[in-house]
């Protein structure tokens, strides 16, 4: 064998060996174990920043630089003095750095964005209907609430802002538990203490007339990947501007003892010109999920409503009580 060929062959063998030593726990019935608690916090941007417009992956050094920059930015915000009137950079919506738990590292995918489709790592354009619908809900969020229904599902504790489906790293509570039997897999999210019980035999799906806040999920194994399809959302569920006819496909692949690849694709041609796909790798954790009893401690809702009534009584119209993104 010529030396270059022998060297190439050696490289290929080593590459195969690298893959082979990855250890994937298996269930007794022959499927990879997905069971455990998983941390999906990541500082990998959801959409690709302009600075990386032509770059899909980062080098290890670039990852290190990015993580350091994020940490530095947070530290700077944490030291900003709150003047009680205008400067809320660290206190917007009542959270300061102490309460945020957004992760400190990029996903091990080492990508410049969680979105991998469209290829530019950016959300596809909305359709006219998508823009109109989003405008309606944005206006609703910007006005003084007439009742609790005016506020979004996150403020009402009906859904969690990062609990999906699909799950996506957010300000805090980026944890989920997977419990796996041969017939079902449960996804329990820490955020708003919610769960989906997903059959592994593919169905049957609910009739179109039955709509659920989290949609109707059913799953099946494609080789060693558990694929979950979710439909039948309500018109209020709205993940990133989607509508009730969104079709969500989630793919869970155990990579090794410590990580789980989580990929999802949203298809909603009523609201978006194209589908969009995200992928991150979740990290196994020994930490327990806390019971995040959101509704039980929802002091924000009565305070928002009573504040709105007080402003009405006093003839005041302003939006200073709103978080920055609702103004």
């Amino acid at each position, binding site marked *: 064998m010529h030396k270059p060929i022998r060297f190439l062959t050696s*490289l290929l*063998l*080593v*590459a195969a*060996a*690298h*893959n*082979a*030593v*990855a*250890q*994937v*726990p*298996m*269930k*007794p019935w022959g499927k990879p*174990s997905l*069971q455990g608690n998983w941390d999906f916090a990541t500082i990998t941007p959801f959409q690709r920043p302009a600075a990386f417009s032509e770059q899909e*992956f980062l*080098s290890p050094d670039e990852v290190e630089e990015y993580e350091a920059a994020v940490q530095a930015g947070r530290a700077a915000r944490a030291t900003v003095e709150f003047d009680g009137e205008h400067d809320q950079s660290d206190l917007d919506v009542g959270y300061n750095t102490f309460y945020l738990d957004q992760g400190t590292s990029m996903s*091990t*995918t*080492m*990508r410049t964005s969680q979105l991998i489709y469209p290829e530019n790592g950016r959300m596809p354009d909305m359709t006219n209907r998508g823009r109109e619908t989003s405008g309606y809900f944005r206006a609703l969020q910007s006005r003084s609430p*007439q*009742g*609790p*229904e005016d506020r979004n599902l996150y403020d*009402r*504790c*009906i859904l969690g802002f990062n609990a999906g489906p699909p799950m996506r790293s957010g300000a805090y509570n980026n944890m989920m*538990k997977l*419990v*796996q*039997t041969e*017939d*079902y897999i*449960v996804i*329990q999210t820490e955020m708003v203490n919610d*769960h989906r*019980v997903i059959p592994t035999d593919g169905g*049957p799906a609910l009739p179109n007339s*039955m709509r*659920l*806040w*989290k949609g109707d999920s059913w799953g099946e194994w494609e080789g060693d990947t558990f694929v979950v399809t979710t439909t039948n959302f309500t018109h209020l569920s709205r993940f990133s501007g989607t509508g009730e006819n969104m079709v969500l496909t989630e793919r869970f*692949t155990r*990579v090794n003892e410590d990580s789980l*690849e989580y990929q999802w694709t949203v298809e909603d041609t009523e609201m978006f010109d194209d589908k969009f796909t995200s*992928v991150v*790798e979740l990290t196994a954790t020994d930490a327990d999920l*806390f*019971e995040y*009893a959101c*509704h*039980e401690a929802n002091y924000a*809702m009565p305070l928002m*409503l009573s504040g*709105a*009534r007080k402003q009405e009584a006093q003839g005041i119209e302003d939006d200073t009580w709103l978080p920055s993104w609702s103004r």
Partner: protein
Amino acid sequence: MKKITLAKPLLLLFLGSLFLLSCSPAPQSTPVAEPVVITESATSAAASQPDLSGIWQAVNTAHWNVEGHTAKKMPVTGVIGAYGGMLAGTSVVVGGEIPYRADALAAREVNQADWANLDPAAKCYVPGIPRQTYMPAPFQILQTDSEIFIAYEWGSNSRSIFMDRPGTSAPLPSWMGYSLGRWERGTLIVDVTSQMTDTWFDAAGNYHSGSLHVEERYRMIDENHIEYQALITDPEVFTEPWTIRMPLYRRIEEDARLLEYKCIEYAEDLLYDHLRQGYDGSKALDGSEPDDNA
């Protein structure tokens, strides 16, 4: 799938992979081609236990009142007629009545008199254990070696019963408490501690203190029935421990499944009606008119 059994090849492969990684460009998100199999074998003890997996439901009126009660008019009968009455039911308390301390019984009567405003479950707060078990909706048990997970349709609540961490305790109280399970002669026994003081046993004002300890027992009577018992111990409120007992029925429909009962949206009128724009009723928490309570 490959099973790796030799240490030396593993070491060589590891060293080789280190070399390869050091020469690699930025890693890609490449699926693992041939993972090593590490089978999570069921322990013999767990594997020999009854399988509680399935969808179950209590069929009684204990969520209204765990003690015996006759049918009763409810605040909503003026709106939805006969559907709004409280159904009668026999007691699920062994012995019939809860052994309250005298002062605690008086507190129960106060609760009962204003239950619509005070009942935490009416506000869609997590009902806690044991009440979550007999709320009028199915629940699903998923049984694994390390934990038994129960998903409840009512409120989309859930709990983990840890089977592999005896002697541990919760870091802080929670609405559903901290559940540690064990098997004894085919019965699942669950110790539930660290529950919030805010939960009730029913809508009749039966309550507990922060000293509550619940010992649940799940015993399969046959394929489709579980005998459920909850031993309630709370010396601050009760003169002695007492027991709730009821059957749980398997939902045997072919298409049985959990749906959603996100009760928050149905509690918002009770909680927030008086804060709605244009509200002109009394300022009672439940939005009721003064005449309703006359």
